[in-house]
């Protein structure tokens, strides 16, 4: 069947995961104790009371603030202070090893929402076809590391040590678009606000709302705008060599001249195309979505492998069908439809 391809399967998985992580708490339960892992490697928000799990970044921030920071400030046992974070990271790793960065590309509710925005943008005719330039991608890449180091670890730790005010105890959550998205998705507007309590809360909430609006608009024209700066992507990058699911490249001389894989990549990872030496090409920004494999025209040059088992490999026949399906999908949009209508009207004899 020509319409069923990896992207379609992935969309079905993403939508199912979105429903499960945003509304699944109605089945799994209301209390935090009832959440699945408490350290999910994807942005499933704890502020969403109907959610079935919560992302690992919220316990890490709380542990930096209330455990490690307090322990350092009071001169307590550092091992005891860091132990909760180690347990959280351990839980994260157990899950992460199973799916690696596919948590981003296949399961993250915020990633799914951005892909839906992209589809809407495409259907309206706003989505740009070109990839972002290498220089722009290179400038954006470090941002996720700064956010991870400063907002997930640094500020909460300093807050726990008494060096910052308590409103900076979980600064990433305060600006995370997933907090606004998932609560809005459950019909609550509580997290979309400007908090006038003090300068810190004003700054954080202004930034959060602005960032969410920015993401909404950019998501219509660019692929995965927030994912590029997401600290979860950075945390994944640290442990990506441990994951069982990997993107493998068996470079061929034709790779030099092709570059379709890089164009297909929603994260604009040009290195998939240019790197001719690495076998494991699960780069730091990769979300293991598999689009590069779909759009590779050479047999087995790119593969998604689970440990040593190939799950999905590049194939010329698949590529032809996939490219045709993509061209048809991109042709059908509102701007093209209006353009065709107008040209038909003009072509009609008066």
């Amino acid at each position: 069947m020509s319409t069923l391809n990896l992207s379609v399967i992935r969309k079905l998985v993403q939508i199912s995961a979105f429903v499960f992580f945003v509304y699944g708490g109605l089945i799994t339960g209301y209390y935090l104790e009832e959440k699945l892992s408490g350290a999910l490697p994807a942005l499933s928000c704890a502020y969403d009371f109907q959610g079935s799990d919560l992302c690992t970044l919220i316990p890490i921030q709380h542990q930096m603030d209330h455990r490690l920071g307090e322990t350092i400030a009071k001169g307590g046992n550092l091992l005891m202070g860091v132990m909760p974070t180690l347990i959280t990271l351990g839980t994260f790793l157990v899950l992460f090893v199973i799916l690696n960065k596919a948590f981003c590309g296949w399961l993250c509710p915020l990633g799914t929402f951005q892909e839906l925005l992209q589809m809407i943008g495409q259907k309206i005719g706003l989505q740009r076809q070109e990839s972002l330039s290498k220089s722009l991608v290179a400038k954006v890449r470090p941002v996720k590391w700064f956010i991870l180091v400063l907002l997930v670890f640094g500020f909460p730790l300093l807050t726990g040590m008494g060096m910052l005010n308590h409103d900076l105890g979980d600064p990433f959550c305060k600006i995370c678009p997933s907090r606004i998205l998932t609560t809005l998705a459950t019909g609550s507007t509580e997290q979309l606000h400007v908090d006038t309590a003090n300068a810190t809360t004003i700054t954080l909430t202004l930034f959060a709302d602005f960032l969410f609006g920015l993401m909404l608009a950019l998501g219509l024209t660019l692929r995965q705008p927030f994912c590029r700066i997401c600290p979860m992507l950075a945390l994944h990058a640290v442990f990506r060599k441990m994951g069982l699911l990997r993107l493998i490249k068996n470079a061929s001389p034709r790779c030099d001249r092709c570059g379709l894989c890089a164009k297909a990549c929603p994260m604009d990872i040009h290195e998939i195309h240019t790197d001719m030496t690495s076998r494991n090409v699960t780069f730091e920004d990769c979300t293991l979505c598999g689009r590069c494999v779909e759009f590779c025209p050479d047999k087995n040059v790119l593969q998604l492998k689970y440990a040593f088992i190939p799950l999905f490999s590049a194939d010329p026949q698949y590529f032809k069908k996939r490219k045709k399906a993509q061209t048809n999908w991109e042709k059908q949009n509102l701007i093209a439809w209006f353009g065709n209508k107008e040209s038909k009207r003009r072509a009609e004899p008066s």
Partner: protein
Amino acid sequence: MKPSNLAIMLATLLLPPTGAVVAEEEQNLKSKKPAASHGHRGAKTFHIDNLDGAKITYIQPDLSSQTITPVMGKVTMPVSGVDNYHALVVEKDWGDHKEVIIRYQYMFGRPSKQNPVRLTAAQKSEFEIVPDPLPREHYRYHSQQTWGFLARYQGELLSNHPLTLTTSNGSEQTLYTDEHGRVTFQIPDDFPGLTEGERSKQTAQLTISGEYQQSDTNHSTQLVADYRVNPSHWQSTELGLLVLGIGFLAGGYLGQNLKNRDKKA
């Protein structure tokens, strides 16, 4: 009904907990520097007068319990070492009249791995009012919110039964339970002296009470809890939407700009 010490007991149990939190906050105010910790991991102490003859039970999340002996009119919920909700149950038996006050208190510590439902489902007294649900861990009751409560007698839900919500700010409201024994109260927005746009850390107490007559015995029960000012007093959704809109416009401009720049390149 015999004269009761209930009013005194209730009034005093409702006083804010003292101890580490208050001490830390007082010190903090003097130094004007952020405190190194929230100090919320300590024991919770409540002043209670007229405790003669009262039985005080402290129930942990795993339902293990201990009897608390008051010291100088104070009852301390000790640090159990585990997190999640704990219950303080104060009972007085007058023979033909049984009174009970129950308070669910969130305590911090290592993960208890216990579901709060276990604590609420357990029978703590013959007649009791049970939160359904309790505010999720790390959350609290706030004014303007609606919360559900169940009325139970010996584990059986009581339908069409009157329950009264009163607050230390002076509000009162009586509603009847539905056929499932459940009632939903909206916590009144009754804090005095609020200024819109300014954060208020005021705390008040709510009491949900009811009476039940069984044979010759009258049962009265109170569920007490703290509630806080709803943050909507200093959080503006309208402003949030406006800023979101500005972000959207900025995103549109940025997206278009990137497109034009690439075309030129």
